[in-house]
C-alpha cells in the first residue's frame, strides 16, 4: 500500500464538491438523525432524570441509523452512470481510493454531528461540548465509517442493499457501539468513571478496520 496523495485529494475534492452542490447526503441524514432523537425522547423521556442514563445511547443510535442511510445513498450515486467503474479504470492504488472514500464519509458524518450534537445538547441540557465527548465522537465516526464504506462499496451492485447493509454493519460494530456509548456517558458525566480504557478499544477497532479494509478493498472492487 503506497498512499498517492494526489489521487487521494482528487477523489476527496471531487466527492466533497458533489456533496456541496447536490446536498444529497448530509442534509437528509442530519434531519433523519434529529428526528430519531425526537422519537427516542417520546419513548425514553431523556429530558427527565430517569431517562438521562440512556441519552448517550440515544445520540449514538440516532447517528448510526442515520449514517446507514448515508452510506447507501453515497454508493447509489457511485453506481449511477458507472461512476465507480470509471474511477476504477484509472491505474491507481486501490487502498488510496478506499482511504479517500473513507475520508469523504468521515467528513460528511462529522458534518452531521456538527448539526446533531449541539441540538442534542440543547434539547436535553447535556454537556456535549466537552473534549472527551468530541474526541469520542470523532474516533467512533472513523471506525463506523471504515466498516460502512467497505461494506457499502461491496454492495453497490446488490439489489437488496438497504436491508443487507445494516445486517452486516451492525453486528460487526457492536464492540464499537459499546465502547463509544460508555465513553460518551463517562465524558458527559451521565455515568460514573469505570476506569476502563474505552478509548484504547475504540482506537484498536479503528486501526484494525481501517487497515484491513484498505487492504481488502482492492479484491472487493476488482473488475466489477
Amino acid at each position: 500500500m503506497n498512499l498517492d496523495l494526489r489521487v487521494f485529494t482528487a477523489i476527496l475534492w471531487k466527492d466533497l464538491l458533489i456533496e456541496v452542490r447536490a446536498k444529497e447526503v448530509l442534509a437528509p441524514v442530519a434531519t433523519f438523525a434529529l428526528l430519531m432523537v425526537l422519537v427516542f425522547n417520546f419513548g425514553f423521556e431523556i429530558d427527565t432524570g430517569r431517562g438521562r442514563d440512556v441519552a448517550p445511547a440515544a445520540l449514538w443510535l440516532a447517528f448510526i441509523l442515520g449514517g446507514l442511510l448515508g452510506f447507501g445513498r453515497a454508493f447509489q450515486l457511485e453506481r449511477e452512470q458507472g461512476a465507480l467503474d470509471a474511477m476504477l479504470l484509472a491505474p491507481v492504488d486501490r487502498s488510496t481510493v478506499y482511504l479517500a472514500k473513507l475520508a469523504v464519509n468521515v467528513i460528511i458524518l462529522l458534518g452531521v454531528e456538527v448539526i446533531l450534537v449541539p441540538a442534542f445538547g440543547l434539547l436535553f441540557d447535556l454537556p456535549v461540548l466537552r473534549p472527551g465527548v468530541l474526541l469520542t465522537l470523532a474516533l467512533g465516526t472513523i471506525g463506523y465509517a471504515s466498516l460502512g464504506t467497505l461494506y457499502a462499496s461491496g454492495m453497490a451492485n446488490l439489489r437488496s442493499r438497504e436491508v443487507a447493509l445494516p445486517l452486516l454493519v451492525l453486528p460487526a460494530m457492536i464492540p464499537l457501539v459499546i465502547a463509544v456509548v460508555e465513553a460518551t456517558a463517562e465524558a458527559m458525566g451521565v455515568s460514573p468513571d469505570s476506569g476502563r480504557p474505552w478509548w484504547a478499544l475504540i482506537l484498536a477497532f479503528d486501526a484494525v478496520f481501517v487497515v484491513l479494509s484498505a487492504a481488502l478493498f482492492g479484491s472487493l472492487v476488482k473488475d466489477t
Partner: protein
Amino acid sequence: MIESLSDRIHAALLSPRLRQAAIVAAALAMLATLFGAFIYAPADAIEGDVQRIFYIHVPMAWVAYLAFGIVAASSLMFLWRKQSRWDVLARSSAEVGLIFTTLVLLTGAIWGRPIWGTWWAWDARLTTTLILWVLYAGYLTIRSFVGEEESGARFAAVVGVLGFVDVPIVHMSVTWWRTLHPQPIVVRPLESPSLPNEMLAVMLVGVVAMTLVFVTLLALRYAVGIADERLRLRRRRAYARALLATTRTLEAANG
C-alpha cells in the same frame, strides 16, 4: 507446497471412502460420548444430572469457533488463490458453524433454566456467542443475496475475514461492558475448583466426537456445493453451445 496441501484437503473432503469412515467414526464417538455423559461420568455434586448437558454443550462451542476459523481461513485462501472451491468451503463451514452456534445457545439455555433460574443471562460469554450468531447469520443472508457471481463471492470472503477478526474485539468489549453492570449470581462449571478426571475424560471424548460430526457434515455440505458448482458450469457450457449452434444455423440459412 501450499497448492499440493490444499489439493489434498479438498480431495479428502470429497473422497467417498473417507466420508464413510468419518460417518462411522462420528457415530461411534457420539455413542461413546452418550455412554460417558449418562453412565460413566458421576453426577455433579451441586448441579446433579443437569450438568451432563455440559458434555455436548462445550464441545459444540469449540466446534463453532473451529467452523468460523475455517470460514476466515478459506475466505483468505479464496481472495488469494481465486479458486472457487475455497469459496464453497467457506460457505459450507459457515452454514454448519451456524447450526452448532444455535445448538450451543439452546443447550446453554436448557442448562441455565434450572441452574441460573433463567433461560438467558447477559453474561460476557453468552453475549459473545449471541453476537457471533448474528454476525454469521448476516454473512449467510448476504450470501443468499449476492447470488452466484464472482464479485459476490469476493464480497462474502471479505465479510468472512473481517467477521472473524472482530470476534476477539467483541469478546473484550462485552467483558468490559458486563463487569460494569449487575451480574446474575451464577455457578460456572469451567471455573469450579477442579474437574474430576472422569468428567474431564468424557468431555475430551465429546470434543473428539463433536469434531468428527462437524467434519462429516462439512464434507457432505462441501460435496453438495462442489456438485452445484459443476452443474452451473455445465449449464453455462451447454448454453454457449446452443447459442453457437443457433448462430451457425442462421448463418447457413442466410447463405
